[in-house]
């Protein structure tokens, strides 16, 4: 099996696991009216470490996986995740992209950007936009905290899974050595 195929398969699987865990957590904390959205973590590693093609496939698959349950037009998250991968891919040459810290910071920025885009697109449709904005802010703060806490674990999970199946991405240092 080609390495890029294995990379896509493993990262999609990891994204599904994280998404399911986040879904279960949101199910448990639903009475407190707080929701976690870990979108940034789903795509940050793929965008920073894989070549563009596989990273885009991971983003599109993950987006469609998220869209399957959500009452939004099917493909919306896929497009937004794809756009985030394009932007990170453009910037990653200037970053020490193999550092976990950079990956977590990229995930935090993706979360923030998706929240802002969501606010611009949908906030007006709520019956009370002010209360909606407050909820959105609370969700963003909780999501950013969760991303910062879970980020190192999830990045390690993806990296170790890739290593286990012999599909570790080529490091920049090795490539230019």
């Amino acid at each position, binding site marked *: 099996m080609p390495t890029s195929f294995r990379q896509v398969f493993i990262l999609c699987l990891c994204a599904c696991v994280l998404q*399911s865990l986040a879904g279960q957590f949101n199910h448990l904390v639903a009475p407190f009216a707080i929701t976690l959205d870990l979108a940034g973590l789903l795509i940050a590693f793929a965008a920073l470490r894989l070549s563009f093609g596989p990273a885009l496939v991971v983003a599109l698959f993950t987006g469609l996986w998220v869209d*399957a349950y959500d009452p939004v037009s099917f493909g919306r998250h896929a497009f937004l995740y*794809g756009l985030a991968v394009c932007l990170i891919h453009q910037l990653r040459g200037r970053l020490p992209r193999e550092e976990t810290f950079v990956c977590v910071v990229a995930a935090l920025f993706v979360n923030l950007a998706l929240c802002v885009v969501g606010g611009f697109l949908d906030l007006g449709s709520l019956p009370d936009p002010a*209360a*909606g904005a407050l*909820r959105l802010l609370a969700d963003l703060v909780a999501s950013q905290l969760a991303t910062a806490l879970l980020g190192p674990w999830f990045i390690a999970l993806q990296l170790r899974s890739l290593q286990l199946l012999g599909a570790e991405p080529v490091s920049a240092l090795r490539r230019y050595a």
Partner: protein
Amino acid sequence: MPRRFDQARPFFTLGLVLLVWLILPGAIKRFARLSFYELKAPVDLAASYVGELQDFWSQKTRTNNELIAAARELAAVNASYEFRMRDDARLRTEISRLEELLRLPSYGEFRSEPARVVRRDFNAWWQRIIVRKGSNHGILVGSPVIYSGGLAGRVVEVRSTTSVVELISSPGLRLAAVFDGDDRPVSFQGGVNPPLRPAQGVLEFVPLDLFATPAAPRSLVTSGLGGIFPPGLIVGQVVQLELGTDGLFKTGRVLIDERLGRITEVTVLVPIDASVVNAPGQTAP
């Protein structure tokens, strides 16, 4: 390849993917969505069954004395329900007699289908739950859903083993309601979901002579008009009413029962006559 194009290549690729996606026939997209949904559903179903297994094993750790006390409480509850069932049968007979006497059309008949909640999906944009029964149990899109606190919402999607319910706290749900003891319909819309507090709804077109305050709230119930919801189901408590911008009606806030946030079990009211939910203008979006 020129460097400028090389830099734009990711965006060009994404644009190409978007173009292909836009011109893809709707049937393929629907099939893809359904496939992804059915791929994802077993994960949540499995988690739900594992949760029940956990509950089962945690119950096994209870002592005999605790079980005896629980059985005694249950017996008292059962006795109360038996009394209510007899009362219910008497009231149904009375309703039928009055309907015949006054030649009134009878209310739509429903079949009750209890279902466990697999997943609560609450956020600022929508408030939905997924229940563990679907088309294999005859659930229909648009069916009303109730819970111990009153009206929970309506079914918006039905799959083979699961159904998606849009809750009354969701901004996408509007219905005609009445104040308890009043027969003038008002418009209710969910969608005010502040953090760390129970969900609220918005009321519109409230007549000027109705009043409600946090100290003296009024119950809001379904009106049974212009929709599939049977009349008399509790929607929430009206805690605030103020004059609207047009001066002709009041607008207000409805506090929805906080048990909706912890909902674990619901009952789907499946209409026996399927055309009730499939009639034009009454289908769920």
